[in-house]
């Protein structure tokens, strides 16, 4: 299968760099898969699970927001926080959920509140996914 270059970077480190076959990215407006030769695009990410498929197998990485850029050179994901499903700090996600919940309680209804609620949903989805895999 055709491969393309994929870089996953967070401000603190370079997490992944190499040739891959497919990457499923949690975009802000829905998940999308990237294959070799994808049209150039830029999108924001929501907190979610990013799946990397290469000849070596499949790898799942938790990303908590950021950007994805597809260009002729390949896919670059600039993640705010990223860690593999095994290494991610579950307590950190739990605190984030707590923070967002307390902010929701204080926010007046409106655009800001809607955004926070969507955020909360994303975080909870990530948390559920992690709980799901932990039980296997």
């Amino acid at each position: 299968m055709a491969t393309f270059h994929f870089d996953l970077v967070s401000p603190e480190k370079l997490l992944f760099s190499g040739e891959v076959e497919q990457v499923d990215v949690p975009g802000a407006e829905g998940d999308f898969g990237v294959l070799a030769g994808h049209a150039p695009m830029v999108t924001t990410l929501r907190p979610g699970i990013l799946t990397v498929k290469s000849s070596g197998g499949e790898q799942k990485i938790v990303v908590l927001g950021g950007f994805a850029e597809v260009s002729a050179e390949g896919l670059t994901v600039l993640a705010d926080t990223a860690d593999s499903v095994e290494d991610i700090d579950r307590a950190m996600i739990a605190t984030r959920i707590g923070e967002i919940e307390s902010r929701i309680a204080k926010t007046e209804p409106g655009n800001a509140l809607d955004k926070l609620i969507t955020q909360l949903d994303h975080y909870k989805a990530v948390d559920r996914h992690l709980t799901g895999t932990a039980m296997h």
Partner: protein
Amino acid sequence: MASLKDMRVRIAATKATQKITKAMQMVAASKLRRAQMAAEAARPFAERMDRVLGNIAAGMAASEGAPKLLAGTGRNQVHLLIVATGERGLAGAFNSSIVRLAREHANRLMAEGKEVKILTVGRKGHEQLRRLYEKNIVDRVELRGVRTIGFTNAEDIARKVLALFEQGQFDVATLFYARFKTVVQQIPTAQQIIPAKPPEGAAAAAPTAAYEYEPEEEEILDELLPRYVAVQIFRALLENAASFYGSQMSAMDNATRNAGEMIRKQTLTYNRTRQAMITKELIEIISGAEAL
């Protein structure tokens, strides 16, 4: 003339100092390695972000609705200087060189009739700038308790800066820090971060392919630009950390060498004095015996 005992005490004191400077040098060397690794690990993110921003900005700059963080407020009157220095001294000219650059910049702006506001990061810079620009300092951040600088530290500072910007407190923000070149060379640098100036080369090098944006360009820029500011600050903090330890290491290396030189000289004087005294005593005994 100092007695033999005084001289012994002085030599012991110099030796103790040398031990401390030697230990500080080794600590700085090991911390430098870690700081350097952190600075290098952060580079790919900043570089790629430059590229992405460069690409988008190239397509946006011409249009009307470009966000203020990119296009500026249209004025050039109030300048914010973000001066990042170390928390501690004993690092050679590290802190002073950053402060000096910021001071020159501030004086030039004031001579042009511009208003200057200062935000200090790090205790040493605050102490030095407070003497001259007490009134201009709008805020200060200390990273005293922080052991390893994380992205969250940079985000906190960026939030402050962005909040000031949104209140219309300044038009242009410039970041001051020391770029780490080598262990013996740290270059005090001034970098404008608001309005954002993505390197020209990055945008020109990449063919500006027609990107698809999801969501709209404006929304992406709204998220990207604040993060760009945070990343620039983060990079500056990491470069600063590496520069600090580099500077401290060479300063302490010098101090250790100077202490060694001093010990050598003091020991020589001590031995000479001791021998002179023995000779004097011998002469006294001999001449005493001859007199009998």
